[in-house]
């Protein structure tokens, strides 16, 4: 069995902006192995988020392909089990409390019973939010919300976590804590991590750093 969890082959993506054709990704290739953490840095508009969306199967490349554990199936049916995502703006569901937000990810893959709820509570405890499990997002701080998002991303034991500037809306100290938590949990569970960040210090904590520039991906 291959150790490669994520593989991107010759990805190209262009957008139309009025009459102009913007080439956002140009022949991008990368692989991520099981348990590996990879950071992608680059200036704004360099194509980091576009690449992440292609890797997540949320968008289709104009050319090239994305493989999850050797398979080109990146559809919704497989996404919930294979992939966890963490966003800059947390994207918690405001009508649900912290525990229900985590459980929601579990509902995507199957029925939820008391065992699943206990697992979600344990995951919240793992990210330090045991006492805040029944608080709605509006009553949580930014750091707490992002920790709920991390718990939600990891709850289905995915093989890959894609994190899109997860500290972008957090202060430095809280951001450091969230990144440390994310890296630690991924390492414990042998989950591959692709971290898009502007922060060089956060990138340095990953096992490999890549740099995105003008739609091309290079080793930092």
């Amino acid at each position, binding site marked *: 069995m291959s150790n490669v969890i994520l593989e991107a082959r010759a990805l190209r993506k262009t957008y139309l902006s009025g009459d102009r054709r913007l080439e956002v990704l140009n022949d991008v290739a990368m692989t991520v192995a099981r348990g590996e953490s990879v950071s992608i840095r680059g200036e704004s508009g360099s194509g980091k*988020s576009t690449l992440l*969306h292609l890797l*997540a199967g*949320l*968008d289709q490349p104009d050319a090239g392909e994305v493989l999850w554990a050797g398979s080109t199936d990146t559809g*919704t*049916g*497989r*996404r*919930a*089990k294979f*992939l966890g*995502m963490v*966003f800059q*703006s947390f*994207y918690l*569901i*405001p*009508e*649900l*409390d912290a525990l*229900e937000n985590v459980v*929601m*990810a579990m*509902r*995507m*893959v199957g*029925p*939820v019973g008391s065992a699943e709820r206990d697992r979600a509570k344990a995951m919240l405890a793992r990210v330090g939010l045991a006492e805040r499990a029944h608080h*709605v997002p509006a009553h949580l701080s930014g750091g707490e919300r992002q920790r709920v998002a991390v718990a*939600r991303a990891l709850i289905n034991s995915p093989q890959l976590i894609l994190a899109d500037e997860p500290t972008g809306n957090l202060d430095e100290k809280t951001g450091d804590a969230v990144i440390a938590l994310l890296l630690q949990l991924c390492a414990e569970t042998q989950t591959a991590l692709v971290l898009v960040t502007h922060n060089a210090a956060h990138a340095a904590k990953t096992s490999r750093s890549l740099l995105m520039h003008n739609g091309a991906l290079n080793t930092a």
Partner: protein
Amino acid sequence: MPWYLYLALKQLFPTGKKFPFFTAISVLGVALGVALLVVSISVMGGFGHEIRRMIVDTQGDVQIRGSGLVNNPKAIMGLVAKVPGVTGVTPFAEGVVMLEYNRKPIFPGIQGIDLTHINDVIPLTRYIHNGTLGDLDDDTIILSSQLAYSIGANVGDKVQISSPLQLEKLKNDEVFLPRELTISGIFEIGHQQLDSSTVLVTLRRMQDLYGLGNAVHGFDVKIVDGLDPDVVTRRINAALPPASGLEARSWMELNQDFLFVLQLEKNLIFILLLFIVVVAAFSVTSSLLISVVRKTREIGLLGALGGSPREVALCFCFQGLLIGVSGTVCGLAFGFGFLHVRNDILHLFTKLTGSQEALERFYQFSNVPAYLQPGDLLLIIASTIVISTMAGIIPAWRAARLKPVEALRNE
């Protein structure tokens, strides 16, 4: 529970929110429509039910008539009485007479009834308010209430009755004097036409007035409660001698035009009031569309978590369905609650406006009848839930069309 159903529930009734305002407004709109439908259709149904009961009470379930006179009524009655499902048969003779009281002539319809059998078929006793049926004999007459009121006659007064037979006799230079009858009772059925222009005499007196001998014009038949009158009618027709020229017709067949108008009125009311539910459904659509716009990023997130466009669409369709179900339940509670106190409200209104007497005289009732057929109730529930669910389709379609990547970029 699938995630989309769970989320639909949570979006309508969010955790930690005591009063979900948008949901309450949407549910209230549907509930008011349902309540109005229940009340209106029940009252319309109540009037229809009363009218149907009145028809059966005055004509029986089945009526047998021929093209001319029936000269052997006893033989026919014997045949009809043996038909399975028949519980009573009574002969009748009918026509028009001139009734004179205090030199005031009127021309009511007259019914000759067989006192021996009438109670087996028609519960006349129930409708005689002044006097009793037992007081009716060959020298007495029972008047309908509005007729008696219009000529100012009362029980014990004497009236003169002239029949078309007088004209026949005059042609042959014979004299046929008007009959003087004493008013022995006054009845009120609750039907404007019957109550304003009908008089009742014994069958013998009617046969005398019309020179019928022993003949009658037809028979009213009562059948076992719950049996289909059309089925028994077919059995009676099969039992009647073909040469008699008699034909049995059920009360529904005899009054089919009237019943059609009643049903048409009810259907029109239903369709008109259903528009209230449709308007409420537009409000649900509007709320859900606003919700889709407000929750664009969450919809993108659901895609990122692994939700398919079909499941996202179902989430919003379920919200329409849940609003429809909640609105229907509340509307039924409001509607039946209002029906429960309808007579108290009517009495309060008539007391305040002093219109109690006018209401009773014009409508012949002091209470508002209400009768909701199970079929009508099911139709109200089903149509409301279907319309409300359809209200979620446009928002659901819009939500399903959102691409996760574009929705997530919607900062």
